[in-house]
């Protein structure tokens, strides 16, 4: 029986979907996480504890473990452990993306450098130290620009600035985010850098793909119909198939494949984000699949989940079809309107009954603290829809969202 090692951070949205996929396939599963699982001692050999940021120690631990237990594939479910997954795979002699390529996807400054050198359209960027002179830095950049930490994901800490004054405010705000003890500990040197890049106007899309021997198969292309013009870049609605012309979609696919080639990615899931401004500009390429629980909006062939596709690919199991099921589908990541404590949620039943809505999943519990972007890193929840065409899906998501009412108690924040 094939054995897969899943690297799952305890903050993952994807745990259940990946574990379910592995179980469905009947493969042997080992879950490695960054915090000790409560039953690890009682049921040894089924879970491992790894420090996802102490790479060498974690590789040694898995190599030692693999002497007793053959591991056939290693998959990181989230961004956190993509570099570690590549390092473990290399140590175990398993197919993997080059370690340097995963590092390039993890750090935005390296990504910009690699893409620019390969003449792939991407924002012009310059990396600054958090200790650089604020006045000089603000004077030295072109506007509008976008400031972002180099190692955080999900738009965390991403702020647009149109003037020197806005730049200074944004720069200091990001320094505050980077000074969070956990961000600092995990980011190490990366937590001392801020990337400043040109703002590219235009529509934004997300491409979900699978690399096999360097060849990219587009699994889905999502439109993001809400304009992302800043000052913060909150992800909300994703709808597929894209309503862009087939020619533009083809250009996006070609551009993404070229970006993967330039980075050196060859195997496994890819999540890319691009802006369309005369042609595609690559904003991000990540060596992982789509975040949150957004993957639940995708089914392939005769009903296979994205997680099953990823597990099958990693274990070299046959994949019948990578064709997305034909109906249009979409997801809305429910934004957090303001900081505080979630006091009450109303309208879930009403939202669920909107025609085309497949489900409403609330992720934050009552009394829990909620923090919006750019500091936050969570969504209130997810709304899923399916319909005959993308417009119906988008309309259903918006109608369902309007039916939801979140009471956030500011006094307790």
């Amino acid at each position: 029986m094939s054995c897969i090692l899943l690297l799952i951070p305890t903050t993952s949205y994807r745990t259940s979907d990946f574990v379910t996929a592995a179980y469905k396939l009947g493969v042997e599963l080992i879950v490695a996480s960054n915090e000790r699982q409560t039953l690890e001692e009682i049921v040894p050999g089924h879970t491992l504890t790894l420090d996802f940021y102490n790479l060498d120690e974690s590789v040694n631990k898995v190599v030692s473990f693999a002497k007793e237990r053959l591991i056939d594939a290693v998959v990181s479910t989230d961004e956190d452990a993509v570099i570690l997954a590549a390092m473990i795979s290399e140590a175990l002699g398993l197919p993997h993306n080059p370690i340097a390529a995963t590092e390039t996807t993890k750090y935005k400054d390296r990504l910009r450098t690699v893409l620019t050198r390969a003449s792939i359209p991407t924002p012009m960027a310059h990396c600054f130290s958090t200790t650089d002179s604020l006045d000089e830095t603000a004077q030295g950049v072109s506007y509008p620009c976008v400031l972002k930490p180099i190692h955080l994901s999900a738009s965390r800490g991403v702020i647009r600035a149109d003037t020197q004054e806005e730049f200074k405010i944004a720069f200091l705000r990001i320094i505050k985010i980077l000074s969070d003890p956990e961000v600092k500990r995990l980011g190490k040197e990366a937590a001392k850098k801020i990337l400043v890049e040109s703002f590219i106007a235009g529509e934004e899309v997300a491409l979900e793909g699978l690399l096999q021997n360097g060849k990219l198969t587009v699994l889905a292309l999502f439109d993001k119909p809400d304009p992302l013009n800043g000052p913060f870049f909150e992800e909300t609605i994703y709808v597929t198939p894209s309503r862009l012309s087939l020619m533009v979609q083809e250009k996006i696919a070609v551009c993404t494949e070229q970006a993967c080639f330039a980075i050196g990615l060859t195997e496994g899931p890819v999540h890319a984000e691009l802006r369309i401004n005369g042609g595609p500009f690559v904003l991000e390429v990540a060596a992982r699949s789509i975040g949150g629980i957004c993957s639940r909006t995708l089914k392939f062939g005769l009903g296979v989940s994205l997680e099953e596709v990823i597990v099958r690919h990693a274990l070299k199991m046959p994949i019948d079809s990578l064709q997305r099921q034909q109906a249009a589908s979409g997801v809305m990541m429910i934004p957090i309107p303001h900081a505080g404590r979630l006091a009450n949620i109303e309208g879930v039943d009403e939202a669920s009954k909107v025609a085309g809505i497949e489900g409403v999943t609330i992720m934050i519990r009552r009394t829990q603290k909620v923090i919006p972007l750019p500091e936050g890193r969570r969504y209130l929840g997810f709304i899923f829809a399916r319909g005959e065409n993308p417009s119906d899906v988008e309309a259903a998501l918006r109608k369902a969202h309007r039916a939801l009412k979140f009471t956030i108690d500011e006094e307790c924040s």
Partner: protein
Amino acid sequence: MIEITEIAQKRITTLMRDQEDQGNIIEGVRLTYSGILPTIEYRLAFVETRQEEAGDIVVTANGIKVFMEKRNAGFLSDVRIDFIESLQQTGFKVDNPKVVMPTTVAPQSPPTLDTPQAIAIKKVLDSEINPAISSHGGYIKLLDVKEQIAYIQMSGGCQGCGMADVTLKQGVVVAIKKSVPEIIDVLDTTDHGSGNNPYFTPGK
């Protein structure tokens, strides 16, 4: 006799045409299953020309060729393949009259917690699992044991926890099956959406 509903037939035909547009010639679909009675997972996959396997049993239903391994053909002989498109779910649904699928809701009949199996499971929970998960404020209660399936409910730090599925499948299921080998599955009936104090919460 295998039955493919009209809507499922249309759906399969459409998907087969999509495959053929990509240059793959599809002969039919392969029906397989995994799991142990009564918790069976069915799976449909395309069969391309010349991918038939020796000894396959092939049945034509509503114009679609259904391929099955010979050893599975008896078990799958009367399934009904449907396509569901509702607010709750979208996808193919296989009903097998030879299987009574359990739900993840605890059985309605009075629980049977005084059988040797139930007593043994409670012992595993009380002596091993609950003391361990109490460090995360969690607790697992045995609700019932029916037809070799244990129904449990998580509470405290486990209810709504982002890693609850790992605790269940990589811990609880293994520990219970090891101590009570006749148990074939452990089903979680917890309403995780109502958990107010989960130990691990998802976030980027």
